[in-house]
């Protein structure tokens, strides 16, 4: 299948009082049409910034984002808004924060349809919004409800309906289930999967929850301080975790099994931010295996075996 999205050497830096913050630093990957790439990593590693840069909510510092071959990262913003905006949508963690509390459910879903189809008849807009409600499983009786009257799962359904109402092909899902209880989380994950199957949607699914990402993704990319440090098919990462950070991340997850006694790699130190990073491995300070070379040279993301890339000087030592 063809790639819908091709990201090449993408960088997004923020200038801060303490120096240049490399929020997304030289990231390269593709997403095939109809597939899901899961982006995992801990807070501050650049997941949301990556998502927003693909959405053109940030202008990249450099690099390319090809959408069906067109570079949406560098094109004129007017051109982007006119021709691409509705194709690429985003679903956020806290739908509540992005929903106007004074608008009813129906109005909230009508809004993006109205904005993006100037001149569409009112009745047509309402009809489309009602279709969207049905599609995401919001009962008709909720049309006149307000966001504060709904539970988290239903609010997230509004977020999904708003994103879908523009018939996008690509959706960036930024922690869409992180704030939900597990039974509600399952409903939203199933909904997203159904929509993908029925409409051929392509997803970038951002989360810090490894079990969720494994469930929903075809490929997984692990980020650490702005960089992609491991990328492979979703099933592979749990069978053959190579990068020492990915290993620690996976071993840190508490498993709901009382008989499993697993070795936990407890990392030292805290997460920092990539401000004016030195040319070294960004994980070196916390890595249990770091050697001199790790502090002197930045490891590049390189393919170790088909479809499995790792950014670590000693990656070969960690292969099984």
């Amino acid at each position, binding site marked *: 299948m063809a790639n819908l999205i091709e990201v090449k050497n993408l960088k997004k830096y923020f200038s801060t009082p303490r120096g240049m913050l490399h929020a997304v630093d030289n990231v390269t990957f593709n997403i095939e049409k109809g597939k899901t790439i899961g982006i995992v990593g*801990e*807070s501050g590693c650049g997941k949301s910034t990556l998502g927003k840069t693909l959405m053109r909510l940030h202008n990249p510092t450099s690099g390319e984002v090809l959408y069906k071959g067109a570079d949406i990262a560098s094109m004129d913003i007017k051109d982007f808004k006119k021709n691409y905006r509705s194709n690429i949508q985003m679903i956020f963690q806290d739908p509540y924060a992005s929903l106007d509390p004074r608008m009813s459910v129906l109005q909230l879903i009508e809004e993006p349809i109205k904005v993006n189809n100037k001149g569409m008849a009112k009745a047509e807009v309402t009809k489309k919004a009602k279709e969207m409600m049905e599609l995401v499983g919001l009962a008709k009786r909720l049309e006149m409800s307000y966001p504060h009257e709904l*539970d988290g*799962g239903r609010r997230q359904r509004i977020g999904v309906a708003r994103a879908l109402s523009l018939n996008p092909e690509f959706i960036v899902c930024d922690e869409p289930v992180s704030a939900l*209880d*597990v*039974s*509600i*989380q*399952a*409903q939203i*994950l*199933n909904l997203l*999967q159904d929509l993908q199957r029925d409409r051929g949607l392509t997803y970038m699914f951002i989360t*810090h929850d*490894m*079990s*969720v990402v*494994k*469930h*929903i993704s075809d490929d997984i990319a692990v980020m650490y301080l702005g960089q992609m440090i491991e990328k492979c098919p979703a*099933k592979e990462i*749990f069978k053959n975790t190579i990068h020492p950070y990915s290993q*620690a*991340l996976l*071993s*840190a*997850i*508490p*498993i*709901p*099994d*009382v008989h*499993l006694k697993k070795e*936990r790699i*407890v*990392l030292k130190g*805290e*997460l920092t931010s990539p401000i004016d990073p030195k040319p070294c491995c960004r994980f070196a300070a916390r890595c249990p295996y770091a050697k001199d070379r790790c502090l002197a040279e930045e490891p590049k993301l390189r393919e170790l075996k088909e479809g499995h890339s790792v950014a670590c000087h000693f990656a070969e030592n960690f292969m099984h």
Partner: protein
Amino acid sequence: MSENILEIKDLVVHYETDEEVVEAVNNINLEIGKGQILGLVGETGAGKTTTALSIMGLLPAKVGHVIQGSIKLEGEDLLQKSPKAMREVRGKKISMIFQDPMTALNPVKTVGDQISEVILLHDHCSKAEALKRAQDMLAKVGIVPERYKDYPHQFSGGMKQRIVIAIALACEPELLIADEPTTALDVTIQAQILDMMRKLQKEKGTSMIMITHDLGIVAEMCDHCAVMYGGEIVEYGTVEQIFDNPKHPYTKALYRSIPSLDQDVERLHVIPGMVSDPSNLPSYCTFCDRCEEKKGICSEKDPWVIDVEPGHWTKCFQYTPEWEGK
């Protein structure tokens, strides 16, 4: 059988506001053995925090009411104690760690002062001695002791939670209640904190209530587990019993709704319907409206607690003689 540090009997707690009565905790019974860790699990609104606040004597004034029941700490009913006596209990016998560290930290006091205050309340030692012990405490939770002069905002989220734990443990409590202590933290930081809590708990033999919605944390940390739904404990047992042999339909459904790391499932199991509304609870089984195993009797009356094996009980008709034929 070991002695119990805490025994909760028939506890009922309501929140009464102008508009409604929220039946947050409905007749729960629980005990925690000395030196044991009890996991209290359940989704948002199940009544976990309310249970914890009742033990601490910290229910919101005017709104939160204990309607009936007793909470005995080493045989003494905390509900009969005066506010002053409860302050003593909180300083010396029970501490609580909240999910959001900022609720427990004073932004305008150094962390060293905040820890030594707790020590002074507990022990009538000198100020210098207390400060020294505060620094030891910081080291124990993995923060360089020299940072005792720093203020809370100078620490990261994970470090703030460590400081809260240092404060909670400084009075050497017999019972520690941790209310989702790591929910807001990243997994590698969570692993550090849980590791540290486990070590300190072992060292001092502290009894603990670990409130969480993460079954993984329960499996790794706890000896016993109580599953809450709609203000009730619907199942209780050792972690082995609850994980290997879950009996209540809610417990079973919870397991199936979490994606698993070691098994592949195409679709996640969905528990139909919404979490129960404690301002509008049914007179029959609280879980009935979402239950996939229900029979007629379930919507007629409320099930009672029944033993399914020694030390393992659940609140569901399936295990009662009434189930046959209904």
